């Protein structure tokens, strides 16, 4: 069973999934370091904090080099439930193989957590092939699932890699309420243009400047909403229901779509391309054990499963780590 411990060096509770206990000496050492860091405020140089999360005892190859023994990893997650479940699944699956895996949930948007991967605070994050590709290369044209995956591999920086993709897809999508769809007979995103003067779009703040967002919608469809309402998570759904927004960017696995009978608009220009769930790993952590373990997880993950896992967190209010544990147990990887 996972437990929460406090990493004194960072003042953050980290879920040590393997249940390794902190020795007394380590405790005093980190406590002393905390004091030194906090009091001196001197150890502020780049990367000079030796106890930063993500630092491992194992020697690692240089950037882009092959990874040797990996004893611990930090799995990060974006600021939405699905990402947190996936992060817990990865972490617990790795823990079952004897790797000390900690999670950093709720880091933020892609722009933020990729930065955390880059500065080695985080080693692994659940990603989406199409969204990540679109983020990395603005003019990407790949559409099909395999095509996107191949293009993504080519577009990744030298220090990063993606493991095998799962069949589970979670696309960005534009949804409207049943009533709105009926009133304006909406089928595709292109149909929104005729009413764009009356349409407020709600989405996470980054939607405003991403290619898979307002800029892409304008480019591909000529759709420019009258206003944009930046929200996150369930608040987007509430805004759509409350009438503060007429269209919203919601993930295709979001249980709110079926619960509220939202209509997902077709995307003929495919600005939201194939988006398969895939683990993004820093190369120095992608050794055999990590690769095999996460590949096994991805092999079992499909869209229906993913949708159900998200529903358990968002609707049934179960903890991401509990949902992850139950599912891993069911597929025999826990």
């Amino acid at each position, binding site marked *: 069973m996972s437990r929460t411990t406090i990493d004194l060096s960072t003042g*953050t509770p980290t879920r040590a999934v393997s249940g390794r206990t902190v020795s007394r000496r380590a405790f005093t050492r980190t406590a002393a370091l905390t004091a030194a*860091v906090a009091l001196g405020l001197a150890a502020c140089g780049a990367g000079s904090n030796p106890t930063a*999360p993500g630092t491992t005892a194992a020697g690692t190859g240089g950037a882009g080099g092959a990874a040797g023994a990996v004893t611990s990893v930090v799995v990060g997650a974006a600021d939405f439930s699905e990402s947190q479940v996936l992060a817990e699944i990865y972490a617990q699956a790795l823990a079952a193989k004897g790797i000390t895996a900690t999670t950093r949930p709720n880091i933020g948007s892609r722009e933020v957590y990729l930065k955390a991967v880059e500065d080695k605070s985080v080693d692994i994050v659940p990603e989406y092939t199409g969204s990540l590709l679109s983020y990395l290369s603005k003019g990407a044209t790949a559409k099909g699932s395999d095509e996107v995956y191949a293009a993504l591999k080519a577009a990744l920086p030298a220090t990063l890699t993606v493991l095998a993709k799962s069949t589970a897809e979670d696309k960005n999508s534009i949804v409207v309420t049943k009533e709105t769809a009926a009133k304006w007979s909406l089928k595709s995103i292109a149909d929104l243009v005729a009413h764009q003067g009356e349409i407020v779009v709600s989405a996470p703040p980054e939607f405003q400047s991403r290619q898979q967002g307002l800029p892409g919608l304008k480019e591909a469809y000529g759709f420019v909403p009258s206003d944009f309402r930046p929200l996150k998570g369930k608040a987007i759904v509430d805004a759509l229901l409350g009438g503060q927004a007429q269209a919203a960017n919601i993930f295709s696995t979001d249980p709110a779509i079926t619960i509220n009978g939202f209509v997902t608009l077709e995307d003929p220009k495919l600005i939201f391309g194939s988006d398969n769930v895939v683990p993004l790993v820093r190369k120095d952590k992608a050794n055999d054990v990590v690769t095999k373990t996460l590949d096994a997880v991805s092999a079992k993950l499909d869209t229906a499963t993913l949708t159900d896992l998200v529903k358990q967190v968002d609707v049934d209010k179960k903890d991401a780590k509990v949902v992850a544990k139950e599912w891993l147990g069911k597929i025999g990887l826990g």
Partner: protein
Amino acid sequence: MTWVWEHLGDIGGYAASHALLAGIPLVVGLALALPLGWLARRLPRVAPLIVGGSGLLYTIPSLALFILMPLVLGSKILDAINVYVAMTIYTVALLVRSVVDALGSVPESTALAATAMGYRRLGRALAVELPLAVPVLASGLRVAAVSNVSIVSVASLIGYPQLGYYLTDGYQRSFPLEIGVGIVGCVLLALVFDLAIRGAEWALTPWARAGSSGGSGRAPKEVAAT
């Protein structure tokens, strides 16, 4: 309620990390504010600069300060040091003025008497003025503690786990109970800090207790002079 019970371990973990993120900067901030405040009283000409300048820091929105810290410090974006330093800045911003007021609350006659007894400037500050300034200082510290506990929760918007996690996560999942846990946790933590500071004040001011039986009507006349 069962939810709370089942998550007691996690809540405790987040609370402990919250306490560290709010508490350590409180101590460090006090350590920095004391000499600054003392300096401001010694040098009336630069006092407005010190007091005003430190107060200025408090107008920086907390979210911005947390986010921009890595740029200033060159630290990693998920390092707790970002939160520690930002919180220390807020603590100093609040406490410098408290220190100035607290030192000002020491009766002039007492300070003069100490000088007459042979105390040098620094010795007098440490041995006489500082202890006498404790009550006013403690009240400033209590305000800073409450403010810190509240501000630390904002760090959850940038992925630093502490009680604020329940606020953002609860909002995203539309889960009122979780938000409630976050709020109550913060309030209780603030209460603990408040009691701890009151306790420290009680321990550090034995003379206040000795005199209390005879009524507290012997307040010095010029307590409020700055």
